[in-house]
């Protein structure tokens, strides 16, 4: 046997047949959005602004100190509710959604044996990762949007009023307020995409979705702890949650985007790194 197989084999010319990308994306969304845990998760997220809104409306504002006093300020400023809920769900609830869908996207499919089927179809590995990233990104966007939409509806109903009291003391009318909510949705979504990208990289390395989810959240918790240690100030610009507090900048008048922009770039860096690691791992992964 002198000739190697590569020499002896037929020339691999022309483009290999591929399933249309839109069909793959549609199929992925169909799968993601039919998964019971996605639906339950999104449903529970939708309850969050309602629960918070009810809590605030029950706070009579009689207390002059503590959270009750703070919540009392929200009354009549219904469009603050979506922002407040996003702020409250950002540290854990939303990252949980991103990590969960990323864990299911690769590790979960691997555990089910379905990743094998997709690779055998074949869907090229890089393309498959692209489809998966699209699925995670969509679920994340939907999750953030649900909070915002439910919040924007429940806020005026429960708290009364459609204005937004800013931290600067001014009050925004409906349209500018809705603009701030939309900005918040976009900004938070990009931040959670960064979590999802890292989770996707971990998800590509294991076939246990639980490991991908747990390690992503553990990493996030460690980051949050490191954020609170002042002697580690030099490290903090590299940590994703470093800018998560700046979501409050969205309720300042006039709008100060500097810190929010820095946060966006930081998230983009995390997305690039996460997807690169995932691609590298996918290329050699045994399915």
């Amino acid at each position, binding site marked *: 046997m002198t000739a190697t197989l590569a020499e002896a*084999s037929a020339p691999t010319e022309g483009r*290999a047949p*591929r399933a249309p990308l839109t069909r793959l994306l549609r199929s992925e969304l169909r*799968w993601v959005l039919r998964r019971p845990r996605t639906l339950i998760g999104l449903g529970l997220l939708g309850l969050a602004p309602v629960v918070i809104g009810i809590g605030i409306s029950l706070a009579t504002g009689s207390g002059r100190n503590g959270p009750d006093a703070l919540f009392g300020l929200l009354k009549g400023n219904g469009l603050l509710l979506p922002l407040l809920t996003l702020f409250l769900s950002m540290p854990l609830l939303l990252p949980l959604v991103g990590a969960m869908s990323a864990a299911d996207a690769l590790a979960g499919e691997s555990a089910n*044996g379905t990743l094998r089927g997709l690779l055998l179809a074949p869907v090229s590995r890089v393309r498959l990762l692209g489809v998966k990233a699209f699925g995670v990104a969509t679920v994340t966007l939907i999750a953030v949007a649900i909070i915002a939409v439910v919040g924007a509806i429940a806020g005026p109903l429960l708290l009364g009023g459609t204005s937004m009291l800013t931290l600067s003391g001014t009050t925004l009318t409906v349209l500018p307020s809705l603009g701030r909510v939309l900005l918040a949705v976009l900004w938070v979504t990009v931040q959670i995409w960064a979590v999802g990208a890292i989770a996707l990289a971990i998800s590509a390395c294991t076939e246990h979705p639980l490991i991908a989810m747990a390690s992503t959240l553990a990493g996030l918790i460690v980051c949050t702890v490191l954020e609170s240690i002042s002697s580690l100030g030099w490290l903090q610009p590299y940590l994703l949650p470093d800018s998560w507090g700046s979501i409050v900048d969205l309720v300042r008048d006039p709008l100060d985007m500097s810190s929010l922009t820095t946060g966006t770039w930081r998230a983009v860096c995390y997305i690039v790194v996460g997807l690169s690691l995932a691609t590298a791992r996918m290329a050699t992964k045994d399915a």
Partner: protein
Amino acid sequence: MTVEANERAGVESAVAGSTPARVLAARTRGLRKTYGRTVAVDRVDLDLPEGAVLGMLGPNGSGKTTTIRMLLGLTQPTAGEVELLGHALPGGAGHALPHVGALVEGPGFHPFLSGRENLRRVGAAEPLLATGSIRKAVDDALERVGLAAAAGRNYRGYSLGMKQRLGLAAALLVPRRLIVLDEPTNGLDPSGTREVRQVIADLHAAGATVLVSSHLLAEVEATCTHVAVLHQGTVVAQGELAELLQAGSPALQVSTEDISTALNALRAAKVSARAEGDGLRVELTGTTAPEVLRTLVQAGVAVQEARRHRAGLEELFARLTESEPAAIDAEEPR
């Protein structure tokens, strides 16, 4: 070299000599896969002729599945080359795999989707399936494996056999040139097993190449034209089933009641024989069947029946895989 090895070499050379340059649907050269210090597969040179039904046999852990996974590009070999439908892997996977249907390591589907939804998801990823024809292809495949009635039920509620059928349906979703079935009858009832056999026979009749791995020898003997036997990660025999079976030592089985007379007569004629069952087994080394019969008849032995002993696949398999450990170690490369 042990007797074992001699026989093995004999088997392989006989097969190699009788296989002219046929088109190969798949072949591997020097395939090797190690996991850490464990050698899963080593020196596997597998030839899968186009149009053949190749039964891949081997005890548990002999490297069947690992070989199949490397053949399909799911696992990257540590060393060696794989060619699938004329395309070298991994580069040619995009060209070869659309024509390959596979059921590897059991069926893999989503429990919360129905059988039909699961197949539609598989269909969406199939490059050769037009978007408009996915529904029909899915329904046809479900019909073919006898799952049409349960197609709307969630995969979670399927029995083991139904799951296996759905896996088979996914492999048959598109007309294929090569079908790879890893333990296809796992969990199937006897009628399911028969149906799988029928599916394989139909594919064979339609000109497709089939690779079936199994540890059920009867299944392989009933459906395959070719056999490859794996043992401890390496191919110990491969070729056409009929030739492999004939390559065993020839013998004649004689039914008679005069066993002692017969044995004495044969011993006098220097033919090796021994009592077995209700007659004797005569080795046909250095003699022929007519000569043996003449000897027996001349000695006055009442021969009821004489037939050529045809080695079953089971015997061949046992001979190839249950050899003494020492003999195997000698074969094993380090």
